[in-house]
């Protein structure tokens, strides 16, 4: 009987049944129907185990949350030690851990960012950034890209796809303008009136399948922002923390954002925390009314300590060099798999270990996700473009596990192709 100390279950079936009953029937059923009936049990490094004992290499990493691996021993250690002394802390007061982390974040941030505001999750941090932009510019409008994704909290959800905003009657098109990605003119039109507080951009839009910004696109957006007095918010939730081979993806574009948002991997997946790094121009409300944003768990001290250790790991020269190796390895490996399935595996979008694999079918990545799961790999399709598989290897991946991963991926891609080819003609048409 699976006994976890505080609770126990008789079987995996019991967990799934109760998950539907007490938690989320929609999600629970979705994964069972998708051929990914995963209930994560043991986890270690880049490996996760289903309750059945099935072993999976994790290249979803919960969007980069497990960037440095599951239960990274260094981070676990830091948090366990911290628990001898710290807890969440009191959000009203100046705090040891919050101050130390803020200083560490600013020390390694793109130039121009001078202060840190904490949240407990990515969405909250996005909301903080948007509120901050409105305060700083005294404008209400926010521009984001179609199929961008910044989370599901109050303001963040309105910047994203209608699917999630309309469900909760939270879309407000007058204030939240969506423009097509990589379209300079559309962006220019949206900003031209000079009434936009901020443009918020993922450096590479994750949930959209990591389409890469055209060379010069982000740079132009930044320049337009400057021209029209609009702030540029870099959402680095999935592209930060060395995943592109530099600490922040935006630095590779030479852009100095007005605000930078980080979450997910920031605390090694052990204690939730998120942060907004802001420039002096945006930081006004922190002096005017320091209680302007209140969040009991925002900047929880244990999270700060987890984050400091994680940031240290990410910033090591050895880590950066390894990301370059892993990235190089993956590029070569994908090229050779592509050569085998040129009509099926039609594209690789890659910036460091941020990767999107494109398949020639409107739901191609759904098939691949399923076959990967069967073959011992967990990678997720892109919710907003299921042609594309999100492929997110960890930044500390060991060469042998990298080779094993590619072996499994190669076979799964082939099997998914066999399945798609066997579909009736009508279902095979690409979009």
């Amino acid at each position, binding site marked *: 009987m699976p006994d976890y100390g505080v609770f126990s279950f008789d079987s995996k079936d019991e967990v799934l049944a109760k998950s539907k009953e007490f938690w989320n029937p929609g999600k629970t059923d979705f994964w069972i129907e998708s051929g990914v009936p995963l209930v994560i049990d*043991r986890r270690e490094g880049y490996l996760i185990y289903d309750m059945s004992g099935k072993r999976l290499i994790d290249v979803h990493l919960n969007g980069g949350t497990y960037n440095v691996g599951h239960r990274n021993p260094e981070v*676990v250690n830091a948090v*366990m030690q911290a628990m001898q002394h710290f807890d969440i802390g009191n959000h009203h007061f100046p705090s040891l851990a919050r101050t130390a982390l803020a200083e560490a974040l600013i020390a390694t941030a793109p130039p121009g960012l001078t202060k840190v505001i904490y949240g407990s999750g990515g969405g909250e941090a996005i909301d903080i950034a948007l509120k901050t932009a409105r305060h700083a510019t005294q404008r209400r409008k926010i521009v984001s890209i179609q199929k961008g994704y910044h989370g599901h909290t109050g303001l963040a959800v309105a910047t994203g796809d209608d699917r999630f905003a309309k469900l909760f009657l939270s879309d407000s098109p007058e204030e939240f303008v969506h423009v097509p990605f990589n379209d300079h003119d559309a962006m220019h039109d949206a900003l031209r009136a000079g009434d936009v507080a901020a443009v918020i951009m993922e450096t590479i839009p994750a949930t959209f399948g990591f389409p890469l910004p055209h060379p010069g696109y982000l740079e132009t957006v930044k320049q337009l922002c400057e021209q029209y007095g609009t702030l540029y918010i870099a959402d680095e939730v999935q592209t930060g923390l060395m995943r592109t*081979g530099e600490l922040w993806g935006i630095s590779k574009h030479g852009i100095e954002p007005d605000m930078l948002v980080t979450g997910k991997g920031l605390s090694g997946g052990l204690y939730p925390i998120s942060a907004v790094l802001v420039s002096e121009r945006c930081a006004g409300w922190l002096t005017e009314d320091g209680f302007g944003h209140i969040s009991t768990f925002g900047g929880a001290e244990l999270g700060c300590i987890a984050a400091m250790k994680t940031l240290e790991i990410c910033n090591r020269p*050895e880590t950066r060099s390894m*990301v*370059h190796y892993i990235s190089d390895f993956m590029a070569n490996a994908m090229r050779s798999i592509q050569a085998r399935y040129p009509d099926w595996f039609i594209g690789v979008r890659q910036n460091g270990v941020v990767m999107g694999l494109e398949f020639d079918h409107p739901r191609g990545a759904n098939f691949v996700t399923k076959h990967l799961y069967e073959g011992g790999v967990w990678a997720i399709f892109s919710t907003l473009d299921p042609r594309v598989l999100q492929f997110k290897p960890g930044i*500390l991946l060991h060469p042998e596990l990298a080779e094993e991963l590619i072996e499994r991926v190669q076979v799964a891609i082939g099997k998914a192709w066999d399945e798609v080819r066997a579909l009736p003609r009508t279902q095979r048409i690409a979009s």
Partner: protein
Amino acid sequence: MTDMIEVPIEAAGVPRAKAMLERAEWAARAFARYDRESVAEIVQATARAAAAAAKDLAYKAVAETGFGVAEHKVLKNLACSTGLLDHYRGHDYVTPRIDSEAKIVSVPRPAGVVFALTPSTNPVATVYFKTLLCLMTRNAVVISPHPMAKAVCAEAARLMHDAAVAAGAPEGIIQVVEEPSVPLIQALMTDERTKVIVATGGNPVVRSAYRSGNPAIGVGPGNVPVLVDATADLRRAAEHVITSKAFDNSILCTNESVLIVEESVADPLLRAMRGEGGHLLDADQAERIRTTVFPNGSFDTKMVGQSATSIAQQAGIRVPQHTRVLLAPFDLVAPEEVLAHEKLCPVLGVVRVASARRGIDVARAVLRISGAGHSAAIHSTDPQTILDFGAAVNVLRVSVNVGNSLGGSGIETNLAPSMTIGTGYLGRSSVGENLQPKHLLNFTRLAYNSDDTVPFADFAGLSPWAAPAGPVPSYPHASNVSTPQADPAPARSATVSDDGEAQLREDLRRLIIEELTNIIKG
């Protein structure tokens, strides 16, 4: 179900050092596929950069550790950079070897990640030495220097890394632990990413290398007996022994420890040694040396690499200004006689014996105390005595009619030039030769059916290896950005022309001769 989380608290620096091993694995993986020409260019460029810094780092080593003789260290640094390059020029640890007679192809397979411990006594030379051996054999190396010499070793490792990478080597192929500590060394030794440990240092370090559970090459200490028999060329013997004992103030593990001389030639030999800067102590003075160099019966590490005059002064003995070696006579070679133990300072024990036969017994006695498997020296013109000495004395190399400091380490003999002297089974080591490139690789053997009816294929001209296409790894540019053209192989363009090459070698030769002359002149 989930196990209780039990995470050992790691000592400071350990996680970072483990990250080095992890990075080294990626680098080694890439390097293991380089072809011979690329490897030769990398080795050459790195050795040159090391030679160019030989002098600077020699002085820095003396300044940091507080011992040794800078000019002598220059020589060692050159011997372990361009000297090695010359010695191994034409050697090939990359190309598959084809034996059509035996119908076997042997494919060199590097160890992978080498964990190298380097001592305080020969800090830079050992970093140079081990690093170049690793590069010749396509290994990655993580160096943990002795804490007393960490700054100079880190500088040496960094400059070699940068030169190697500029010549096309994978990034991170040479790394160095900046803040070494006992727990850190312990952690890296036992880490499964370490493929072989090459330990030079004190006995505890070597023993723990062997205990680590990982393959290890560690060598024991020396305690070198040198026999001068009645047939020896006394003038030369005197010069060689003194020069060798004075070299770098005796901090090579190959330095002579106890002079054993046949009674009939003892006086003329000692007289000749005085002419070379040896100062013969009387019984009372020898006693003072015992208490100064071995207070409470054990060697005072503060004496390591100090000059003879400074030691004499500390012992309250007046000696001539030009004294290079203190000669301390005693009678019985036994463990309780401290002067019969290893002395990493210019104090040489002197024992008179009735015959060469007795000399061999005494040499065996010296090595029972310590230094088994290491080295010994003999000055003699009688081949039978030389052979008997070599067959009886428990060492794996004997320097004949040459000083042992540079003789045993292959610099003034044709042994493999080495900073790591394998002490073999006699000295509880896995290697009995001077450490050399071949110890850092294995071979995969493609063995054909020996039956004559099964033909052996023609492998001539085939290679499984290739030159790197650009920097390794390539920078992770976004895949939709047309990558800036890889710099047109900076490695290749940096190759010096044959003329430049010859000139450089000539310069170095001149430098070495100059240094040697200075040493001999004292």
